[in-house]
């Protein structure tokens, strides 16, 4: 099956009182692994359900390949969906579950068997074909759900948080397996998650949504290195980017953002320098997280800044006074709109040169 592009064109979905999607335009290119990322309730699952045809958009349209599918039944859209709860039929064996989508499509028995065998082999399910879902582990169930999607040889896979019911170790394993699967089949994948690590490691591109509005689409490198706005900046990266009012460094009307790994204690002179006091030290083995309270006489509360130090550096002690210096990129966002001022081009010259607090 040749992979197809999947395109949402100004799709709006309104429920009784809430706006789940606000004029979303987004394209997954043929064969692309596109991740829809956002907090719960941001509309990412709704987008997937609209593509599948399970929900009808209030306005806008959906295109799969070169066909507008707004009036096409879900079963004829040629997309397969993998659900968070796996949605396996408890009364059917693994084999019957996998072939379930084929049985409604009048596919010849021999062809059906071939496809089921292929799917089972590619997901190491051959030994489990006669079991019931209740006799499987979480990871195995996940594989069955994937197999059920694969047998259809669809133009695109829609995956709705498929790994969120797995424990941490299995999730890492399945992540690798999904990437491998995508490489092998070359099918377009739209993958919904709230886990930014999944998004960063799996996606060719990431689309970040918040409250039904698309915030940014870009490669993992893009959204990390050039966040479009405060929301993306705060959402991507773990631990999250430090965001504090520009007043602290004498810049009014902007929000300053520095990632925890881009701070050093004392040391070299940089564009941003803050006097602070260590309030918490967490040593994780491979690195230290140091939370510092910044002295801010001009503000009503003292902002907390998190610094990530490599294990080779010995961490400061609790209560110690330190000077925080930015050693990496410093982001500036409009404090009203939240827009990244550098990308908006408004203060292109000022961004990054740190004028004003040298």
């Amino acid at each position, binding site marked *: 099956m040749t992979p197809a592009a999947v395109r949402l064109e100004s799709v709006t979905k309104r429920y009784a009182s809430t706006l789940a999607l606000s004029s979303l335009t987004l394209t997954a290119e043929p064969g692309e692994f596109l991740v829809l990322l956002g907090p719960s309730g941001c509309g990412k699952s709704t987008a997937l359900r609209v593509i599948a045809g399970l929900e009808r958009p209030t306005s806008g349209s959906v295109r799969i390949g070169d066909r507008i599918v707004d*009036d*096409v039944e879900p079963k004829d859209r040629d997309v397969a969906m993998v659900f968070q709860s796996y949605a396996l039929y408890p009364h059917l064996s693994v084999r019957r579950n996998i072939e379930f989508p084929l049985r409604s499509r009048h596919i010849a028995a021999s062809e059906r068997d071939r496809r089921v065998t292929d799917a089972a082999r590619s997901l190491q399910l051959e030994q489990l074909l006669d079991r019931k879902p209740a006799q499987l582990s979480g990871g195995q169930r996940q594989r069955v759900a994937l197999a059920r999607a694969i047998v259809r040889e669809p133009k695109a896979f829609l995956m709705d948080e498929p790994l969120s019911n797995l424990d941490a170790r299995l999730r890492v394993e399945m992540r690798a397996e999904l990437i491998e699967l995508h490489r092998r089949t070359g099918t377009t994948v739209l993958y919904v998650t709230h886990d930014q690590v999944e998004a960063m490691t799996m996606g060719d591109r990431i689309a970040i949504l918040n409250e039904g509005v698309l915030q940014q689409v870009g490669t993992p490198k893009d959204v990390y290195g050039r966040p479009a706005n405060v929301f993306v900046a705060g959402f991507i990266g773990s631990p999250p980017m430090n965001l504090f009012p520009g007043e602290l460094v004498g810049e009014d009307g902007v929000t300053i953002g520095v990632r925890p790994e881009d701070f050093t204690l004392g040391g070299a002179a940089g564009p941003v320098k803050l006097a602070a006091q260590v309030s918490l030290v967490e040593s994780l083995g491979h690195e230290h997280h140091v939370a510092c309270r910044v002295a801010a006489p001009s503000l009503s509360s003292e902002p907390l800044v998190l610094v990530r130090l490599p294990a080779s550096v010995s961490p400061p002690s609790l209560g110690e006074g330190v000077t925080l210096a930015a050693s990496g990129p410093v982001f500036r966002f409009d404090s009203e709109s939240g827009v990244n001022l550098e990308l908006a081009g408004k203060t292109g010259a000022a961004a990054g040169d740190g004028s004003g607090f040298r």
Partner: protein
Amino acid sequence: MRSRRTRDVLLAYLMTVPAFAAFVIFVFYPLVKTVYLGFYRVAPFPGLPSHYVGFSQYSTVLSHSQFLAPLFNSTLFVLFTVPTGIAIGLGMAVAAHRQLRGIRLFRIVFSSTIATSVAVASVIFFTLLDPTTGLFAYWIGQRGGTGLLGNPTFALPAVAVVSVWQNLGFSFILMSAALASVPEDLLEAAAIDGASGGRRFFRVTMPLISPTLFFAAIVGVIAGFQTFGQIDLLTQGGPNGHTNVLLYQIYTTFYINADTGTASVMAVALFLILVLLTLVQFSIIQRKVFYADER
């Protein structure tokens, strides 16, 4: 997709039509019709038209002893059957609660009357209570005469005994399920706190199963007001009307005396009594569901 939605609506109506056709013809229409029939007085001789008398028939019938006496009998019958039925069922459930070798057999025996119908139970007791050949007469040293069922004082209690026996199985199953739903750890905690067996039962078990007790009571009261078969098979309302319960009175008024108007008025009254009881039952179930969710 628009057509799919229309199709779904059509399908929904198609699927609900069979049930609703039956409801309309055999539940809603006759309910309204019963109220309506209560407005018409039936002529004393067959063949003459009945005429509209409005609410006057309601007020005369409902204040007349032909309604009040059966209502009293039904109430008495409920008082005889419901508390005893629950108490005995609970006692049997407690006796069979402990795991013992062969307890399964006892549980089957205890539930066995569920397999008797009202008619079967009535015929069995009819023969037992027969004044000439029945065992009961032999035990109390009497032979001949009117027997218990012909005795104005004992007829209704005797019918009540038949009903209680017939319902023992149901009551036992219900109470056993209730006991089984009491968490073992609560009882163990009470035992560790030094509560005696009786205290554990009354302070822990009883409050926890009280919703089921209420449920059983209401179901029992509703069933009690619908009593018919026992009366028809054992006493036909006699002696001298002492076992003439409400539904039996409706039956004779309608079927034997062909007084549709009077029978309809009494049917409406019975309906209102049962609705009231059902509403009480629903509110209890809802509250219980709430408890369960909280726990």
